[in-house]
């Protein structure tokens, strides 16, 4: 079956991306243009699946191409130079998630589990952290070795299992998608106003009620952050803003977890009449032994702390990286997309007489507008 030549090129570049440092979008765009033009040259002016494959073959194995084109590839310890970037990135993701989960577990554990005697204490905190990181690293090395064995018989043009695994590292550091930023904006504004509604104020527990305004305020600030990402994509101001908000949420979570489940009542309708219904009393009166609300609250707080800590870690990696590249604080950044970045700005340097639409031999069509 003939494949789209552009799809072949995109698939190849996704594999190359795995081996490149973060923020290598410019390099990938250069490589993409190179492959398209090479494929056209090979195909006598037209790009076909065959000519695209030929161009890809000339560029070579993705990890070798990534190292050649990026001019990187320093060996770190026992890690071969071509694997340095993806291994560091995947370790970064694992360690980052490890830290994020440890912080969240600490917040939850210290605040709820210890007082009610489920666990005696969070074991050896914070010394348990380097041990859990070490265990993660050992797991990574074992997985890395096992997958490498499974990839031995793969053809060079096939995506390897190792590349799929390394892809996790790339995904973990992708910029926020525009749809996610829009979601944060809508959720922040909508939920912020929702929890402030007078009808809802009556449902809150007396312990939670004084904090409703603060929660709503943070939701609105989160909406503002979503708006900034929606308008300007990923840049240092937005990353710092997100990290700062993450810190506030983590600190606030240590308070909220002790406040307990926010709802004491729910509205119920009995024959057309609305009345308040005590949630906990329902479980007590019906002799249901398991009251789930504290567990639900614990899960919500856990997720808030994990995501906030992860954003803080990502920002602490990306902001210095962008500063090192001389990007400053504010610029029109990128959003995460399925395919490679399509440029937004247009800088016209040369005249172009290309037709608006190109149809290739194998039926592939490409707009050039």
């Amino acid at each position: 079956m003939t494949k789209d030549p552009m799809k072949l090129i995109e698939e190849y570049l996704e594999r190359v991306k795995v081996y490149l440092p973060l923020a290598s979008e410019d390099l990938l765009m250069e490589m993409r243009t190179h492959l398209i033009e090479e494929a056209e040259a090979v195909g006598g002016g037209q790009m076909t699946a065959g000519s695209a494959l030929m161009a890809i073959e000339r560029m070579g194995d993705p990890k070798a191409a990534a190292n050649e084109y990026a001019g990187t590839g320093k060996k770190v310890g026992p890690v071969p130079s071509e694997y340095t970037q993806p291994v560091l990135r995947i370790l970064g993701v694992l360690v980052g998630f490890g830290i994020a989960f440890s912080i969240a577990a600490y917040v939850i554990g210290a605040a709820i589990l210890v007082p009610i005697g489920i666990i005696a204490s969070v074991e050896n905190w914070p010394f348990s952290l380097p041990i859990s990181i070490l265990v993660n690293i050992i797991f990574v090395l074992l997985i890395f070795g096992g997958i490498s064995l499974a990839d031995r018989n793969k053809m060079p043009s096939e995506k390897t299992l190792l590349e799929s695994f390394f892809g996790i590292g790339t995904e973990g550091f992708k910029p926020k998608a525009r749809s996610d930023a829009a979601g944060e904006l809508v959720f922040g504004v909508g939920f912020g106003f929702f929890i402030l509604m007078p009808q809802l104020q009556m449902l809150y527990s007396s312990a939670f009620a004084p904090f409703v305004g603060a929660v709503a305020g943070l939701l609105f600030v989160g909406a503002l952050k979503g708006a900034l990402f929606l308008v300007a994509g990923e840049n240092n101001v937005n990353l710092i803003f997100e990290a700062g908000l993450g810190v506030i949420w983590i600190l606030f979570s240590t308070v909220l977890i002790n406040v307990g489940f926010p709802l004491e009542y729910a509205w119920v309708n009995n024959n057309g009449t609305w009345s308040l219904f005590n949630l906990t009393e329902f479980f007590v009166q019906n002799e249901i032994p398991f009251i789930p609300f504290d567990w639900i609250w614990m899960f919500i707080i856990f997720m808030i702390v994990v995501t906030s800590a992860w954003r803080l870690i990502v920002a602490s990696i990306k902001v210095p990286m962008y500063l090192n590249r001389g990007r400053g604080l504010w610029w029109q950044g990128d959003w995460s997309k399925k395919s490679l970045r399509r440029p937004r700005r247009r800088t016209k340097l040369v005249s172009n007489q290309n037709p608006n639409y190109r149809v290739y031999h194998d039926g592939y069509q490409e707009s050039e507008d």
Partner: protein
Amino acid sequence: MSKADQEMDRWAKEVKRGAVTLAILALLKREPAYGYELVKRLEQKVSFLQLEQGTVYPLLRRMEKRGLLHSEWDYEIETRPKKYYALSDEGRRALEMMSRTWDVLSREMNEITTGVGMQ
């Protein structure tokens, strides 16, 4: 591979390393070019260099970092944006000095090698 072949390989690599920077600067003085264009021009004009295509891109980036080149993206065709490289003032000055040195070197080397029946 004989020792002479090995020596030739080593020597050629060293000569190419120095020559390719000069070749790129000279080609870019004529007109700005993007990566692929430059790779093709180098292939056509300086067969001796026989550059791997992956060699040119990191070199361009290094030269840009050193202030010899500046670049600008051309998004005329959205599906294939091109990063155009052009000489900076520093690059122009470097090219002048390197060209003069190259002229002297090639003239003197010609004199030396002609005398031993190599030309």
